[in-house]
């Protein structure tokens, strides 16, 4: 029971790191980015390549995954995404679906279509018992890393100058730019950082979620659930939503495996009908 809770928390935290960038892009530019998973996939494959082929230690490969995904995200944002912000939601959906399809096929071409694995150091294998709870070492690592990241994100958003600018831009972009805040630059930085986080999440997730070229399609709905259920106005909303989703998914697969993902999708639809603005969104000013 508690083991399931533990696994669920690890899964949820991983989802949060994967999806947090998306919640900012959605909240900041009202931009529907279905291709967010592609950046996560990029990070995952970077880890696989650096660890398995180049022999770089697993821990050293994580920052590389973050950096590479962030750079890819930055380049894409500057060259392609900027042209699409002002377009309709339909155009944004078409554009990002197009990117997803291209990334899926391109990775398939370069890396092959089969699932890939990463060689995790031996020290991360296995479990140990704490008061009767089976604690997987790798999952513990994920909880530690993602927990630290969450605290850091919360700190940056709440206490730094950049964070307050970002919050101002999310709350009302026009007024923020009227106050002299360069919303576009904030957005570029945030997009790159969010892509980097997704890449890091993808790298950490290779062991748990599995990685193959269809990754962006498979997990797109999960990211969207986190963002829409959690709302886009804070970081705690998506965080709680990812924990709920993670625990719910793991528990659902354990207790009622025959229902599969059915439970998650149904709950999502119910929540969206009940609270279209998200479960944890505060009353919107707009």
């Amino acid at each position, binding site marked *: 029971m508690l083991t399931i809770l533990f696994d669920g928390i690890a899964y949820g935290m991983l989802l949060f790191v994967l999806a947090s960038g998306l919640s900012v892009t959605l909240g900041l530019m009202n931009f529907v980015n279905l291709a967010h998973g592609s950046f996560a996939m990029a990070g995952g494959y970077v880890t696989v390549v650096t660890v398995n082929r180049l022999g770089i230690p697993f821990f050293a490969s994580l920052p590389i995954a973050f950096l590479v995904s962030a750079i890819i995200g930055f380049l894409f944002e500057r060259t392609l995404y900027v042209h699409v912000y002002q377009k309709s939601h339909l155009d944004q959906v078409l*554009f990002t679906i197009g990117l997803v399809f291209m990334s899926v096929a*391109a990775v398939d071409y370069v890396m092959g279509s089969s699932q890939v694995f990463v060689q995790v150091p031996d020290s991360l294998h296995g479990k140990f018992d704490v008061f009767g709870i089976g604690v997987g070492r790798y999952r513990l690592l994920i909880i530690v890393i993602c927990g630290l990241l969450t605290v850091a994100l919360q700190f940056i958003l709440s206490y730094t100058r950049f964070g307050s600018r970002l919050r101002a831009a999310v709350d009302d972009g026009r007024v923020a730019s009227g106050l002299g805040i360069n919303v576009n630059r904030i957005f570029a930085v945030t997009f790159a950082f969010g892509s980097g986080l997704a890449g890091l999440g993808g790298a950490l997730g290779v062991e748990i979620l599995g990685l193959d070229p269809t990754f962006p399609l498979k997990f797109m709905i999960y990211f969207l659930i986190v963002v829409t259920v959690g709302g886009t106005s804070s970081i705690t909303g998506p965080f709680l939503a990812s924990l709920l989703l993670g625990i719910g998914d793991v528990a659902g697969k354990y207790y009622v495996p025959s229902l599969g993902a059915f439970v998650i999708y149904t709950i999502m639809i119910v929540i969206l009908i009940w609270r279209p603005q998200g479960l944890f969104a505060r009353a919107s000013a707009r």
Partner: protein
Amino acid sequence: MIASRSNILSATDWLAARARWHPLEFVFWIAAFAAIYLFPDRHLILTEIAWLGLFALSLDLILGYAGIISLGHAAFFGFGAYTAALLAKYEIINEPVMAMLIAGVAAMVLGFVTSFLVLRGSDLTRLMVTLGVALVLRELANRYGWLTGGADGLQGVTIQPLFGTFRFDMFGHTGYTYCLTVLFVLFLIARRLVNSPFGLSLLSVKGNPLRASAIGISVDARLVAIYTLAAGYAGIAGALLAQTTAFASLEMFSFDRSADLLLVLIIGGAGYLYGGLIGAIIFKFMQDYLSALTPQYWPFWIGLVLVAIVLVGRDRISSWTAPIRRIAAQMNWRTLRSRQIAAPTEDL
């Protein structure tokens, strides 16, 4: 008094002129039916174009006329396909036309029930909900494997001959004639519908729901109605696919299918009914050509086309076809003038 009367007349004239058949439309349908005799060796791909065109037409009804973005339109397609295939497999209804109609009605019921889910919320919520419905149905079809065949698909379906005489052959001769006829009939209904006051009210809802309700249009009822109808069209398209291939699979519910469908409609252009049909023709031949080059990486080209269309801009692409449309408009005008109908703008 007289002036207002002539205004009413010109408004009805305008509606009638809007609904009048354009010469190119005759050309289109005559060419489509002539293909039955002209290209007997291409009937398989033409069949695919016919049901894909119908499927895209159904998306056009909700996207182009009501402005609802759906990422899960495959839900109704798959539902109709499974209904038709199951009816045939368990020999509940042997007549394909009857089974097709029942599949359409079943999809309409599903569309009616789920239409209340898309009434609320923003574009993003709608995307999620439509996508979620398709995923739930896929999970259900996977779960009840004893009925649907699960991941292997529904095999062993035998479709009885059409009207008891025309057998579905492996070259698609019967299939094409059948699909094209269904497409044509449903197209006539859709065309009548969108040119009616109901269709115009849909356009106003798409333009601005708030103002539409302010002038007395019950927005929710219109959206439910068109969503239900579009679901029925999609269900029939799925039934046509299931009947012409005697197969139904989980892939029919997949996200890829909904995304491809968006591309089909966008290629042809949304909001004038022919967009889906023209898009289906271009899409299928493009698929035929490109997947012959690189079968495995076909999604890459879909993605590239999508990205290119958005970056170039859909308005700009439609302006490239402006010369063609200008010629078409002239043809229309000439026929209008020959029948001596005054343009309604004179009164305004």
